[in-house]
């Protein structure tokens, strides 16, 4: 299978300007040398904490932010240089679902108007009202929802409208930026199942950005763990969760409490010390070395390259060979079943 989306050594830096002449005094290195490729039909996850660059990378893919260097290839075309009208075909093929449907839906438009607008702008050939009902029903909403305003719907229903809007133009790729994070637990499960169902039905490709590891593992075939703009580890969900090799991935997995009191009592917790450094002034060498429990002198000076570990698995850490700790035995067993 060929790659549908290829992110090729992309860096995104934002200048910081000060003073009357707006002189550049520094820059935020939000994304630094990220290379990834997404196969057609797969769900790929990007996980990490605040400031790790996952949202900036997603916005770069959506062409809402220009990469400082590197290129974005979609279906064999370099889309990072496209502007204006030349972007229109790309915009049809790539859609987005955002975290908070309340702020991403126009409060003065009914969901029917919201969906029609997208179809209208992209000159949909066919009956727009029919397509609107079809989209609503695909997302589990009755036709009467076309007449409701966002404030008349619950959070889950609004997110369904957000998903219907993303589906409107039959896209190939959907970027889901924390698409289920703002929802109540019981509703989150409904939306996760809906996203999975739609992906299978239409052969969609997802770039799924999330901070909840359990959700990302559940939805995604492969994922990348980011920290301060760089990829720390990437691989299939099974590779990463059954044998995480980067100390940051190990700490992240360890920090997630499982809904199982017996398992939690039996598990040893080692917390990461310290805070996430500012992306304004990221640490030298490996960006994680200031919090890393196994860092040594080289980590403070050299940037570890992403090393292949077999399969899809790769991690950027100098101590990769020594650090073969697997996670919680329960997780390991669940994987091998």
């Amino acid at each position, binding site marked *: 299978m060929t790659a549908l989306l290829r992110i090729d050594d992309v860096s995104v830096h934002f200048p910081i300007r000060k003073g009357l002449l707006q002189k550049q005094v520094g820059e935020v290195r939000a994304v630094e040398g990220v290379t990834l490729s997404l196969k057609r039909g797969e769900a790929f996850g990007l996980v990490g904490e605040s400031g790790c660059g996952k949202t900036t990378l997603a916005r770069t893919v959506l062409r809402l932010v220009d990469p400082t260097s590197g290129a974005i290839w979609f279906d064999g075309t370099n889309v990072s240089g496209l502007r204006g009208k030349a972007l229109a075909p790309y915009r049809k093929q790539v859609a987005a679902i955002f975290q908070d449907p309340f702020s991403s839906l126009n409060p003065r438009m009914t969901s029917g108007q919201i969906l029609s607008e997208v179809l209208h702008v992209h000159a949909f050939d066919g009956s727009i009202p029919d397509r609107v009902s079809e989209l609503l029903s695909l997302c589990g909403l009755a036709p009467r929802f076309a007449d409701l305003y966002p404030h008349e719907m619950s959070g889950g229903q609004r997110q369904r409208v957000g998903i219907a809007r993303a589906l409107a133009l039959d896209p190939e790729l959907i970027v889901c930026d924390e698409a289920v994070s703002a929802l*109540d637990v019981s509703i989150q499960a409904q939306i996760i199942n809906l996203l999975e169902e739609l992906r299978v039905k239409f052969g969609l490709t997802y770039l799924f950005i999330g*901070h909840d*590891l359990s959700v990302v593992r559940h939805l995604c075939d492969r994922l990348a763990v980011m920290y301060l703009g760089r990829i720390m580890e990437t691989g299939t969900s099974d590779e990463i969760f059954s044998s995480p090799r980067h100390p940051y991935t190990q700490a992240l997995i360890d920090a997630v*409490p499982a809904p199982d009191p017996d398992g939690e009592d039996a598990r040893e917790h080692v917390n990461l010390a310290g805070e996430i450094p500012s992306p304004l002034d990221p640490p030298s060498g490996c960006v994680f070395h200031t919090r890393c429990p196994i860092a040594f002198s080289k980590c403070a000076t050299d940037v570890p390259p992403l090393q292949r570990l077999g399969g899809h698995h790769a991690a950027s850490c100098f101590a990769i060979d020594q650090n073969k700790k697997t996670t919680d035995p329960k997780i390991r067993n669940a994987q091998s079943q």
Partner: protein
Amino acid sequence: MPLLDTQNLTVSLTQDGIETPLVRDVSFSVERGETLAIVGESGSGKSVSSLAIMGLLAKALQIQSGRILFEGRDLRHLDDEALRQMRGRDMSMVFQEPMTSLNPVRSIGSQIIESIEENLGFSRSDARARAIDLLKEVGVADAERRLKQYPHHFSGGMRQRVMIAIALAAEPKLIIADEPTTALDVTIQAQILDLMARICKDHGTALILITHNLGIVARYAQRVNVMYGGRIVESGNARAIYNAPRHPYSEGLLQSVPRLDQDRSIPLKPIQGSPADPFTSISGCRFHPRCPYAADICKQEVPPFTAGVACHFPLTADTLEPA
């Protein structure tokens, strides 16, 4: 005598002359030194019931009935001044968003020192020394220098540490933490919750931990109240509820969350529909429109809370669906 004993608490919102109950007939108690978790989704009444205990209800919200006994004293019969003295000294609260609970134009130090002077009657210099000790205890490095800084100089996790220091200042017997880590990153969340657990253990402080995260409950709480539609639908030992939930809502919640300790191909079983809206009247059990086991009686009669569960047909080991 339990430390806190809430009996048949009902809290209503009055708006345009219409009373809407947000907390309905809620009874629970907290023993000294224990951690009780309250779980529930939006509109379940978990935050409103704890604000009622703290005497911090907004004007439009009123306690309609019930008793809140703290060490045997009914808080509803205390005047504002007596209640103000209890807050901080006997019980204190940690909120979700520390940026909005700290005063942005005053230094961290002045805010901690104020609460120490107020609650313990310390002199300024003693209060300052105590503030430094507190900051050290909650893991703020370089405490003397940081006292002079303002909330915006602190990261989210550090601000929450400051809130915990303020809550701890007078060594209260009870801390209510309302989604204390929801706004924080997962590695910081683990730091903060471990800190709270350690502090409560060291000082023998009871903790009410309000959360929607079932993993946090499993890791940190001994007992749990599950709330839905303003009521406690199930209550008991956390381990027992997780291993064999008796209320269909508890079962539904547990089956809704993706888990790292299970095979990722296990499909999620969401609860149908949306959480009960307090403004919509629902007859009988408020969960019945979403309940897969609902029968006619569930639509007509509110199930009484007996033996830890409020359900006409509580699940038993035989009826429980395999997880």
